[in-house]
C-alpha cells in the first residue's frame, strides 16, 4: 500500500446499519490520487451506500472516512454535512438516477456547480446587485470553465438547451461535467456507464482517463459493466453482502476465488437449472 501522504481517501472500518439491516459491514479500503478506483459487487452489495456515506447523505454507524486534500489538508468526512463535503473537502459525485436541474440550461447547470466561488466573487450578493466588475469577471471565468468542460464532453453546441431535453447519454456526460466544475480532488461516479451504448461507453472511458491524467483527480467508480471496469480501473474493491471480499489490481481481482464465487455462486451450482449449467460449462466458467 502507498504511504499515508499519497493516499487520497482512507476508509476504515466503515459500517452502516439501517435498523436491523447491515448494509455495510466493517469495510476498509484506500484510494490514491490520480488513480481510478472501482467498487464492484453484485446488486445490493452496498456500493451506493458507501457513496452516500462518503458524500454525507448518510451518517455512518461506525467508521472513519479521511480525505487528504492536497492543498487544504485532511477532512474527516463522517463529521461533515453533505454540502460541506462538496464545498470544502472537494468531493464531487454523480447519481445512479441522473439528477440534473432539468428546466435549467446545460450552461446554468455548470455555473451552479461553481456556486461557492461565485458567491464569494459576488460579495455574498451585494457586489453582484451593484453590478461591480469583480463579479462580472468572475462570471465570465465561470462560463469559460464551463465551456472547457462542455468541449470535453462534447456538449458545447447544446449549451443553451434545457438539460431535461438532452438525450440520455448526453445527460450522463453533463452530470460528470457538472461534478468536475466544482474542482474536485475526488470524483465519485455511480454507474456512469449504465444505459450507454458501446460507442458512448468508449467515449466515457476516454473522458475518465482524461480526468485522471490531466486533472489529478482521483476517480471512485461504481460500475456493473465489467468491460469498463477492467479496462480503465487501476484498483478494484469487490463487495458482497456489505463485506469486502477482494481488493487489488484488475489482474488480481479477476483471478480471486472469492470474487468468482460471489459472481457465479459456486456452491449453489446444484440449484442451477440443467440448461444454465451446461451453458456455463460450455463457456468454461464452471
Amino acid at each position, binding site marked *: 500500500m502507498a504511504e499515508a501522504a499519497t493516499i487520497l481517501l482512507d476508509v476504515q472500518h466503515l459500517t452502516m446499519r439501517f435498523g436491523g439491516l447491515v448494509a455495510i459491514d466493517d469495510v476498509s479500503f484506500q484510494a490514491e490520487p490520480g488513480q481510478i478506483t472501482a467498487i464492484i459487487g453484485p446488486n445490493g452489495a452496498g456500493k451506493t451506500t458507501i457513496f452516500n456515506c462518503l458524500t454525507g447523505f448518510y451518517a455512518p454507524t461506525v467508521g472513519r472516512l479521511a480525505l487528504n486534500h492536497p492543498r487544504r489538508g485532511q477532512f474527516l468526512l463522517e463529521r461533515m454535512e453533505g*454540502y460541506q463535503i462538496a464545498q470544502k473537502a472537494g468531493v464531487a459525485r454523480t447519481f445512479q438516477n441522473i439528477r440534473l436541474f432539468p428546466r435549467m440550461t446545460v450552461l446554468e447547470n455548470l455555473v451552479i456547480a461553481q456556486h*461557492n466561488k461565485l458567491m464569494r466573487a459576488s460579495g455574498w450578493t451585494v457586489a453582484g446587485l451593484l453590478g461591480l466588475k469583480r463579479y462580472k469577471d468572475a462570471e465570465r471565468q465561470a462560463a469559460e470553465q464551463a465551456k472547457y468542460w462542455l468541449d*470535453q464532453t462534447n*456538449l458545447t453546441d447544446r449549451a*443553451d438547451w*434545457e438539460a431535461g431535453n438532452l438525450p440520455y447519454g448526453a445527460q450522463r456526460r453533463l452530470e460528470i461535467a457538472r461534478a468536475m466544475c466544482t474542482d474536485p480532488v475526488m470524483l465519485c461516479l455511480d454507474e456512469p456507464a449504465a444505459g450507454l451504448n458501446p460507442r458512448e461507453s468508449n*467515449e466515457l472511458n476516454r473522458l475518465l482517463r482524461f480526468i485522471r491524467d490531466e486533472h489529478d483527480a482521483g476517480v471512485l467508480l461504481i460500475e456493473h459493466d465489467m468491460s469498463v471496469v477492467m479496462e480503465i480501473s487501476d484498483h478494484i474493491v469487490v463487495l458482497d453482502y456489505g463485506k469486502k471480499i477482494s481488493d487489488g489490481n484488475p489482474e488480481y481481482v479477476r483471478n480471486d476465488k472469492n470474487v468468482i464465487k460471489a459472481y457465479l455462486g459456486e456452491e449453489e451450482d446444484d440449484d442451477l437449472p440443467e440448461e444454465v449449467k451446461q451453458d456455463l460449462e460450455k463457456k468454461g466458467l464452471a
Partner: protein
Amino acid sequence: MADITGSVPEARSLDIPSMLKEAGITALLVLALTIVMVGFRTIDVPGGISVNYRFEAVAVSVGIAFVGRLILILMRRGRSLPAMLVLGPLVLLQLLALLVPDTFGILQPYPDPVLNWLIVIVSVMLLARATWANWHTSQEFTREQLEKRQDESAAKAQKILGYLGPVLLIGALALPFFFSGDRQMIDIAILVTTYIMLGWGLNIVVGLAGLLDLGYVAFYAVGAYSYALLATHFGLSFWVCLPFAGAMAALAGVLLGFPVLRLRGDYLAIVTLGFGEMIRIILLNWYQFTGGPDGISGIPKPSFFGIPMERPEEGVLSFHSLLGIEYEPVHKLIFLYYLILALALLTNLFTVRIRKLPIGRAWEALREDEIACRSLGVNPRNTKLTAFGIGAMFAGFAGSFFATRQGFISPESFTFIESAVILAIVVLGGFGSQIGVVVAAIVMIGLPEIFRDLQEYRMLAFGGAMVLIMLWRPQGLLAHREPTIRLHPKGGAPEPGEVGTDAPDAGGTPETTAERP
C-alpha cells in the same frame, strides 16, 4: 388523459341513444347536485329558521345541463353543424328574452339577470367555436405537444411584452394623468400595483426557490403593524419606518423559516398556513399592543421625503406651497400611486438582477433538485432562508405601504384568503415569470374591482376563474423561462427539435482545443 390522442377526430357516426344516455347522466348528476342546495333555501323566520322551495331553478339547471351536454357531445364528435342548428335558435331566444323582457320575459331561465347573461355569453362562445370548427379541421394534441405550444406562445407573448415593457412602464407612469380626476380608477391602480408587488415578492419564494408558502400575508401584517405602531407611538416618519418594517418582516421570515424549511413541500405549506393564522390570532387577541379587533387607526400618511403633502397652512412648508400649485386632495392619492409603483419596480429590479446572481441560480436549482444541490456544495438551509427572508422583506415593505394608504389596519385585512390570492397571482402568472404576475394581478384583482357592481358574484367568479385558468394553462399564463446566462447568442445555435436527437454525437470525439481555465 386517456381521451387525448394524437389523432384528428373525424365525424364519427351519430349514435343517438348513447348521446342521449350521456346527456341524461349529466342531467341526473346536476339534479343530484342542485336538488337540495338549490331546490331548498333556508330563510329566517321569527323564532328560528325555515326553508322554502324553488324547484323551478333546479328544473332549469337540469334542462340546461342536458342540452349543454348534448351540444358538447356533438361538437366533440365533429358534428358542428347540428350543434350550430341547436345553439343558434337558443341564443336568439335568450337574447329576445333578455332584451325584450316585457313580451318574452317568461323565457328567461333564471330570475337573476346576471346568470342569464352568463348563459348567453357562454352560448355565444360555443356557437362561435362550433362555427369556426365547421369550416376548419381542428387537431387534437397530446399533453406534451400542448405544453410545448403553450410554452412557445408564452415565449412569444413575453417577447412582445418585453418590447412593450418600456411602453407599459410609461403607461404606468402616465396613468394618473389619464384618470386625473377619477379617484376610483387611481384607487384600483394602487390596489393592483400593491398586489403586483406582493406577487413579485412571493415569486422569489414560490416561483424561484420553489418553497410553497401559504402564509405570506403574515409578513405583510408584520410590516403593516410595524409601521403603524412605530408611527402612532413614536411619531416616526414613513421613510424611517419603511426599512425597519422590511427588516422586521425579514426577521420574522428567518425566525419561522429556521426550524421549518427542511420540511418537504406540503408540510411546509401547512406550517406556513398555520403560522399565518397564528400571527392573525395574536394580532386579534393582544389588545394592549395591537388594539385587538379594533385595529390601529390614525396612521399618518407619508410625506414627500419629509415635506408634508397635507392641505397647506400659513407658515408651514408643504409640498404644494413648494411647487406653487393648487392643493387638491387627489394629489395625495397620486403620490401614493407613485410610491407603490416605485416600491414595486424596486422589487422587480431586484428580482431580475438577483436571478442572474449565484444566489438566484441556487434558488432555482434548489427548486429543481435539492439533493443535487447538496452534492455541488450549495448550502440548502441558508439558501432557502435567504429566499424566505427576502420574500418576507418585500411583503413587509408592501405592508407598511398598505398601512399608510389605509390609515387604519386591523387583523381582518390579513386573512388566509389574502395569502391565497397572492399565491394565485404567482401561479396563474406562471411560476417565476415577472410579467406573468402583472397580467395575473390585472386579471384577478383589476377586473373584479371594475365589476364591483356585481358584488355578490365577485368572489364566486374569482374562485371559478382560478380553476378555469389553471385547467386551461396548467403551467400558468406566461410560464416561459429565459436562461440567466447564455453561451451562444440567441438563435445562434441549434435548439432542441431542430437537430436530430443525438446528432452532435455522431462525429465522434472532437479535438480538445479549449485551454484549461
